[in-house]
């Protein structure tokens, strides 16, 4: 739509924009400001915008009362492993489904798509009892393995590879390239934007995940950050909003930083999901 406005409407439009920005940014601002407040600030003047005595005390409390570095490490290892495994395993599977003729191809594709309707929220009871039998409760493997394959990722890779000309693959075969080399070295770079979008979206979703770590972990050596930050509120007594918000800043900063750096790719991930590649 064109940017032409009647001059009289321009201030109104600017006001509207400002209002929208305020609705979405004020909560962030309030979170950040609260994290620099003290207990006194919150009790005496809860609605005051600026902290009377800005301090990092809330952050020091979070760092002193919880092994937050450990949680950062756990969350990063978990989210990076899941994102990497999803991309690595989707490539050969997507290639076979897009390019190779074999018995059972349609059935396999239907199977992959059918699992799309089974989110962790319906699988958690049997997967939990299964992992309990294998002794994988409270382990990193238990956090990662149920998400190592992404049905959506497999499907998106298949869609991406479908448009690659067969002649390219034939030429590589004549040059003596193995199938794995064809998939990871020759074809992967051609769909790099899709793979990157998939990786980033998966990383962010699992960094944020609360449900599965809540189900699977009870002790803190594999606890992840969202769980730990939610616990900040449940533990202790009294008004601790400055502490909870300090934890919340630590939890959301990495995601907002990834978003700021890779906005284009994350947007692509959302529209890819939308239009099936």
């Amino acid at each position, binding site marked *: 739509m064109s940017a032409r406005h009647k001059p009289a409407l321009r201030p109104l439009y600017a006001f509207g924009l400002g209002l929208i920005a305020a609705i979405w940014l004020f909560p962030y601002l309030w979170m950040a400001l609260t994290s620099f407040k003290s207990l006194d600030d919150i009790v005496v003047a809860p609605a005051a915008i600026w902290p009377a005595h800005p301090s990092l005390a809330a952050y020091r409390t979070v760092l002193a009362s919880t092994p937050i570095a450990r949680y950062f490490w756990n969350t990063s290892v978990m989210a990076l492993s899941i994102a990497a495994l999803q991309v690595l395993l989707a490539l050969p599977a997507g290639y076979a489904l897009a390019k190779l003729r*074999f018995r059972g191809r349609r059935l396999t594709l239907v199977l992959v798509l059918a699992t799309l309707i089974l989110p962790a929220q319906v699988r958690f009871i049997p997967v939990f009892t299964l992992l309990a039998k294998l002794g994988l409760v409270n382990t990193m493997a238990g956090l990662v393995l149920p998400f190592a394959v992404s*049905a959506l990722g497999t499907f998106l890779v298949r869609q991406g590879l479908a448009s690659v000309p067969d002649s390219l693959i034939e030429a590589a075969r004549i040059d003596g390239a193995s199938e794995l080399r064809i998939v990871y070295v020759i074809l992967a770079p051609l769909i790099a934007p899709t793979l990157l979008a998939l990786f980033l979206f998966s990383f962010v979703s699992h960094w944020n995940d609360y449900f599965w770590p809540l189900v699977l972990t009870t002790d803190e050596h594999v606890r992840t950050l969202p769980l730990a930050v939610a616990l900040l509120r449940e533990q202790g007594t009294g008004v601790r909003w400055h502490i909870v918000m300090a934890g919340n800043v630590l939890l959301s900063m990495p995601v907002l930083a990834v978003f700021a750096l890779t906005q284009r790719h994350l947007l692509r991930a959302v529209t890819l999901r939308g239009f099936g590649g």
Partner: protein
Amino acid sequence: MKPSRAYDPYWMLLPTLGFLLVFFLFPLALLAKTSLFDWDLLSEPRFVGLENYRALLRSGELWSSLWTTLSISVVVVLASMAAGLALAIALDRPGRFVAFVRSAVFSAYLLSWVSVALLFLWLLDADVGIFARTFHALGWTSPRWLGDPAFAPWAIAAVTVWKITGYALVLFLAGLQDTPQSVLEAAELDGATPFERFCNVTWPILQPTTLFVATTSLIASFQMFDVVRVMTQGGPVRSTSVLVYAIYEQLFLDLRVGRASAEALVFVVVLLALTVGELWLFRRSEA
């Protein structure tokens, strides 16, 4: 293409199929099995047939959590789509500030549910929250948004709308890219008002996007859990006990694996119905 060796496709698919079998299909079968047992995770499971399903229907708990989930989801889907569409139209133009506002709205979609839930728990705090203080300053009595069963489900819905409007916004913006500029300009020359141009040109073009956003947001809303766990724990008086939360409670608070499994299986059927409905709508809109 013919694979270079007949067995190539099979080993390339093996890891993916293996994981899908172990973590998706086998669990579904296991779920069906445990739903027929009385089991508390500790003692031996005892076969009870369909008793878990009967108990769910008898207690009325299933209907109440389905109804809660459905009513919150419908509000969430309609409101986030209306807001997303309005914002997409308002923000579909060049300019750095406009781009910044688009990013601000979308960023909430990427934030974790825990972050959003904690943030709004603080904003909506009945004593020291900014909303309560604002009401107070204006001389009004502030409702206890999260402590009153009449408000809590809608507070949860509002928080969800704040978080996911960015999703609808991004997809509607992508949909608007397909609007033919020449038709819009021709309509403008013919004296069509902006509203007429929207109804007759833009809206029909956006139909597939609308359908897609509606169905995916509905399915996602049905899986709502984190925001309820963090903000209300299903309360007050079960007014926000959505389906997934009810299942979680059955399992980890009441240790009733069988009944939780039965409820989860009902949930699978609901998701299946929603998905089939989605596919049917798409077929129809394409025909």
